[in-house]
């Protein structure tokens, strides 16, 4: 065994259990991790914070063998560590407790704990039920004695499910446990329980990496906080010297790789078009939400993961059900709140998920562009499609928003990400919408296409459409919007006009859920 109490190395924290240096990872043109270095001591709880897309999840995926780094070195207990897959990582003692728990709901607690490697017996290699029970009881012993190993996971509350997930990791002798946003779906009591458990694990010598955007939790739980931004580690602060302000200052100030089109100077925002009153969506914790959009106005919505941004947009368009509330377009109530009714009122919605909700992938560009306006292509009592209109309209749209394609007959699956996004935008613009809702309009498109999309948004707004733009990149909202609202757990925290835009205030509102000062 290694001598972990050796005299050399980190004096105050003991020898590192895990050491990472120079880890680099690119996904296409995105530099997700840029020469990241990190160390973790025995019995230490390390917090990792950063805004959406800062590289936290990628780093954890590298540590747990889900993603292979391009370059870089990792050492675990002094030995070289290069996991090829999650199984590999587990064998070496690193376990990732997933954000979305990865349990089999239809199985029992004990079965889930042993699922990756059931003990077997006899010549038929049947599952050794007795041994399964023993392993489960032993693992649960130190975590939660109340939990019945024979209970079906489906019947458990979220907090208990998480305990099962942790037991699963402990049973496999994990020395390093990585928690990725573990409190998103926990009640406050369950959260306290989890924190007590994490402290217990620490005192038993386990090392823990804790990722969260709830700074308060990170500060109270962690011995050390690492701040990430743009795939780099930009700060490594001890518990004693950490403050919310210092961390937020490190989180913002990201260098934006693209430029923005000039903000229109002659802009005159018009009368209100869309009004959302008292919207409640319990699943997303959205309660009594209000919003007004005006003609020519571009309103940005920012918030961390789980803030309820997408759910808000989906509710307005009637994609998902709401508990109560109303949406008025040009003063008329949109009822019932359903996509087809919303469309009839002049609302359009580009969803975050282009592949499964935006485009008919195996169909052609022309079919996709004319999908929303299909009804209007029909003529006569039999609603016969006017093919020359269909072609004409589609051709005009391709020119208007300059979709690069060899022809209208091109299968949209074969277009680039940016052109696919324009195709989704195009199918909605065919309707000349009064309100355009964009959920992550620049997701998965390259820098050049992003710039084109920003210009397009300005143009659409200038022609009189009210635009609601959701993004997890606050820089692009700062660059494009007239107004930004920040959401935190289903609530609007602040609502800033362009002249009051302030990066730190926006980040503070998104992370802490309160307006600065």
């Amino acid at each position: 065994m290694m001598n972990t109490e050796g005299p050399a190395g980190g004096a105050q924290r003991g020898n590192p259990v895990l050491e990472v240096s120079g880890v680099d990872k690119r996904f296409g043109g995105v530099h997700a991790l840029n020469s990241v270095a990190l160390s973790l001591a025995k019995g230490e709880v390390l917090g990792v914070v950063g805004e959406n897309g800062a590289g936290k999840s990628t780093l954890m995926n590298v540590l747990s063998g889900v993603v292979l780094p391009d370059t870089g070195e990792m050492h675990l207990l002094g030995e070289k560590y290069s996991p090829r897959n999650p199984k590999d990582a587990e064998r070496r003692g690193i376990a990732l407790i997933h954000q979305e728990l990865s349990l089999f709901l239809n199985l029992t607690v004990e079965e889930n704990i042993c699922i990756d490697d059931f003990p077997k017996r006899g010549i038929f290699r049947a599952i050794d039920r007795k041994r399964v029970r023993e392993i489960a009881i032993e693992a649960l012993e130190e975590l939660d004695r109340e939990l019945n190993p024979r209970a079906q996971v489906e019947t458990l509350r979220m907090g208990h499910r998480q305990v099962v997930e942790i037991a699963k990791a402990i049973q496999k002798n994990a020395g390093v446990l990585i928690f990725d946003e573990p409190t998103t779906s926990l009640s406050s009591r369950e959260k306290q329980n989890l924190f007590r458990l994490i402290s217990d694990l620490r005192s038993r010598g386990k090392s823990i990496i804790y990722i969260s955007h709830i700074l308060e939790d990170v500060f109270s739980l962690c011995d050390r906080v690492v701040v990430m931004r743009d795939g780099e580690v930009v700060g490594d602060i001890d518990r004693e010297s950490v403050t919310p302000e210092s961390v937020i200052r490190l989180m913002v100030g990201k260098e934006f790789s693209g430029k923005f089109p000039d903000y229109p100077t002659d802009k005159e925002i018009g009368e209100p078009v869309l009004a959302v009153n008292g919207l409640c969506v319990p699943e997303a914790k959205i309660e009594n939400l209000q919003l007004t959009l005006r003609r020519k106005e571009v309103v940005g919505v920012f918030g961390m993961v789980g803030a309820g941004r997408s759910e808000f947009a989906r509710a307005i368009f009637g994609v998902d059900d709401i508990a109560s509330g109303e949406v008025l377009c040009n003063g008329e109530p949109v009822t019932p709140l359903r996509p087809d009714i919303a469309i009839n009122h002049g609302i359009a919605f580009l969803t975050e998920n282009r592949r499964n909700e935006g485009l008919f992938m195996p169909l052609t560009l022309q079919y996709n562009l004319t999908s929303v306006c299909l009804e209007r292509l029909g003529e006569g009592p039999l609603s016969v499609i006017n093919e020359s209109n269909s072609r004409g309209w589609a051709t005009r749209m391709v020119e208007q928003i300059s979709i690069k394609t060899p022809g209208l007959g091109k299968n949209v699956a074969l277009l680039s990400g940016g052109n696919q996004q324009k195709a989704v935008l195009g199918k909605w613009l065919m309707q000349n919408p009064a309100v355009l809702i964009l959920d992550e309009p620049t997701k998965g498109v390259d820098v050049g296409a992003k710039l084109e999309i920003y210009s397009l948004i300005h143009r659409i707004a200038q022609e009189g459409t009210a635009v609601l733009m959701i993004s997890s990149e606050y820089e692009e909202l700062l660059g494009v919007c007239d107004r930004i609202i920040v959401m935190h757990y289903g609530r609007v925290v602040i609502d800033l006009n362009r002249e009051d835009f302030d990066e730190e205030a926006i980040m503070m509102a998104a992370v802490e859920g309160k307006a600065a000062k």
Partner: protein
Amino acid sequence: MAMLDTTLSFIKDRILIAFLLLMIVIGAFAAPNFLSVVNVRNMLLQSAVLGIVAAGVTFVVINGGIDFSVTSQMSLVTVVGASIITLEGGLIANPVYSIPVAIVVMLSIGLGFGAVNGIAVTRLNMPSFITTLATMMLGQGIATLYTRASTISNLPEQFIAISRTRIFDIIPIPFLLLVAVIVVTQFVLRKTVFGRRMYYIGTNPEVARISGMPVKRNVFRLFLISGICAGLAGAILLSRLASGAPAHGEQFFLDIIVAITIGGGSVLGGKGDTFGTTLGVFFIVIMNTILGLFGVSWFVINIIKGALILLSAGLDSVKRMATEGQGT
């Protein structure tokens, strides 16, 4: 429509047509009576029944579903129709009244089944696969119970005449009905908003819903179309066989699936049309006839048909992976 999709299916249709001609030539050389008037007339009559029922199912398949219940709908249609018009104690004695009434009832049976299937699929969110499998067994059971497993024959001449009357002594009336059904359905599918919408919904119902299309209403109507086609096919079958029996529809089960898959339909949805399906129907009927003339046994024929389904569905799947496979 200068669309990639249609172009592809056009090429596929042409290959299928070339193949059909080839089979006819083979048949003509191999079996001397293959091109005889009687045989051709018979093949056209068989195509009419299979073609009409398969056209209805094609609608459901384009939409990404399946309707297995059509075969037992046909069986039930033949026994109920026969029980109304039979001269041996039929429900209505005078053929002048009994035949129109029977035709209305037979079509209504199809519509009724379609409505039940449609409600189960759209309101209860049941998969069409399991829904129609269940209604298939239901229909089969009711038909058997209704006749106490016997055959009802002795039908009035006027009704049998529907399938015996032919133009130029070779084209039976039912075949003209098939042509009418294909012309209408092909027009609806390829030229109208209703038809075009089906391809969108079949390709991706969620995108269709967010694009404002009435997904459920559309799906419901498809089962009605499938049902009414099965009703019509059952009525023709009754006329052709001059009897109603609870097992009359069963033989078509495999042939419907083979015809649709060969004709360019995909069980994954979003593809195919009734013209293609009809080519598939001709293919099946010619193949059945040639193999029958050669005296090939039914189980060998089944092996061939099974292989054909695997082959055409497999090709479709491979093609789909090639165009949209990345990232999944």
